[in-house]
């Protein structure tokens, strides 16, 4: 398992990381991914949510279901969700 860097994951960091993953999966530049636009607009389909889940686990040690991404379908919402989970510990 890769090293988990959860100690000082600031809001910016989580958000940037999320934006970057979405950009990689949908072949956009991170600057073209807006924080408040539904991920499906960029072509992130329901199967890619599975891959993103595993990446969230590797990066933050959080085990989430793809449906969590379905229910938090923007960079902003997903980053906020991840931060919330991290702050609960």
């Amino acid at each position: 398992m890769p090293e988990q860097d959860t100690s000082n994951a600031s809001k910016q960091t989580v958000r940037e990381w999320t934006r970057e993953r979405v950009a990689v999966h949908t072949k956009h530049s991170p600057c073209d991914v807006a924080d408040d636009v539904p991920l499906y607009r960029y072509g992130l389909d329901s199967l890619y949510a599975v891959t993103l889940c595993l990446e969230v686990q590797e990066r933050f040690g959080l085990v989430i279901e793809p449906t969590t991404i379905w229910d938090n379908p923007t960079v902003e919402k997903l980053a906020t969700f991840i931060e919330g989970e991290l702050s609960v510990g």
Partner: protein
Amino acid sequence: MAVDDELVALLGNPHDPENPVGYRSCLKADERGEILREGERRLTDFGLGAEFVPADMGGRLRTLDRTVALLRAVYARDPALGLGFGLTSLIAAVNVWAAGEGALRREAADVLLGRGRIASAYHEFAHGSDIAAAELAASPECGGYVLTGHKEVVTNIGRAEAILVYARTSPAPGPRSHSLFLLRSAELPAGAVRRHHRYPSVGMRSVQLGGLDFDRCRVVADRRVGSEGAGLEIALRSFQVTRTVIPGVLTGILDTALRMALRYALDRRLYGRPVIALPRVRAVLADVYGDLLLAETFARVAVRALHLLPEQAVMHAAAVKYLVPQMIVAGVNNLAGLLGGSSYLREGEHAYFQKLVRDVQPSTFGHASGISCLMSLLTYLPAIGRTARQNRPRLPTEEMFRPTAPLPDLAWERLGLRGGDVDDLFMLPLTDVPLPERCAEVVEAIEAERTSLAERYAGLSPEDRGAAARVSAYELARRYTIVLAASSCVGVWRHRTSNDANATATAGALVRAAHLLDRNREMSTQVRENLLDEATQRIESHARLCDPG
């Protein structure tokens, strides 16, 4: 006693021309495109519907190994009866059970316990397997919904007491835009629905394939199954159950086809000897018997894994729904070649065979096409590959492989979409157990394949996930399903008790798995002759070709 003994007895002697549920009567119904009424009556008397209702709701559904055994017996008699009466209602009901709490659970249970049927209406011509694009709209209006749009080629939609409908409740793209509804046919407002004609089809001709047009059909909010927007999630969770069950059911078709082909080869004489004496014919029969044993074993282990490792079901279901139907259709087609002209005639001693050839074809594309199963596997393979590369093989609980070991209830709430990063079947130790004669080398080859696959899965690029994956990636996913099937055989062999795995069957199945990985690996004469002896002995003594679980 086998689980299906009572049901098989109810269906009577298949070869008796007077039996209204014998092959001859099934064929007549097929010729006329009519439902086999007496078949349905007997299945109703048996209470087949109750088999689809969980025990805590008054039904007899506890573990799905029993459900598979029963539906398999019906498919072995007549696939159209099995689909038209049994399987369709199960597919619909599983959606309701997977959705969790709610009044509609009671209602679905009552329909099935009261001898009714439920249709499962997902399909629209415009979108095929792409259910995330389904268009039939259920627009929220005045506290309820208004349905407008079409469902096409749906079994029993014109005659079922209840219909499960998959509809779009939000125009937005994305996975939270569909919901499921359970409608009562008798309550549909006249004028707001129009029934389609029966869609003519090549096979499954006694199945009622219909469609419905909805034109501003009002539905109260209580008819929604699960929450609004949960449709795709419920579908993807419930399909894990049905995709695991269906392959084991379909093996009944190949079982019957192989029995008929063996009988044909034993009875028919050419060049002064029985056809079964011709080496080329022996090869085909032995290969198909090996395939049947491989398919059967994989399907059984997958059903056990559904109960024991539900978190991994999303991967196992896709794998078994790809490989087993594919093998069954290929097997029936190969046997048709063996029967030659007799597999093509619609009357005479072997006339039932052409019906099997036609009825088997939807196996590979019905309820999740094989190719879409491979596509979903590609999503999971990179993590599976990384784990397999970094960890030693390990043994899951032996109940996975012991056909008679009791299974825990199905943990519906643990059927997730995440899959996780471990597949216990893929990680099974293969070469640390004494194997039947002539298997060691084959299993070593399969293990080497697994090691190399793990590397390649770990290195799969993001482009190779989703619908645009390259052909080579689909091939990697196909090989995964074969490794799982072979592992199932090794696991069953390892944990065998005296009568649930024999050396001949295990060797035959494993050699065929190796052949699926490498076309140059042919069956040795010894394995072939053992398999044929076993098969003919079983045919002559009226025993089953596969030992029941």
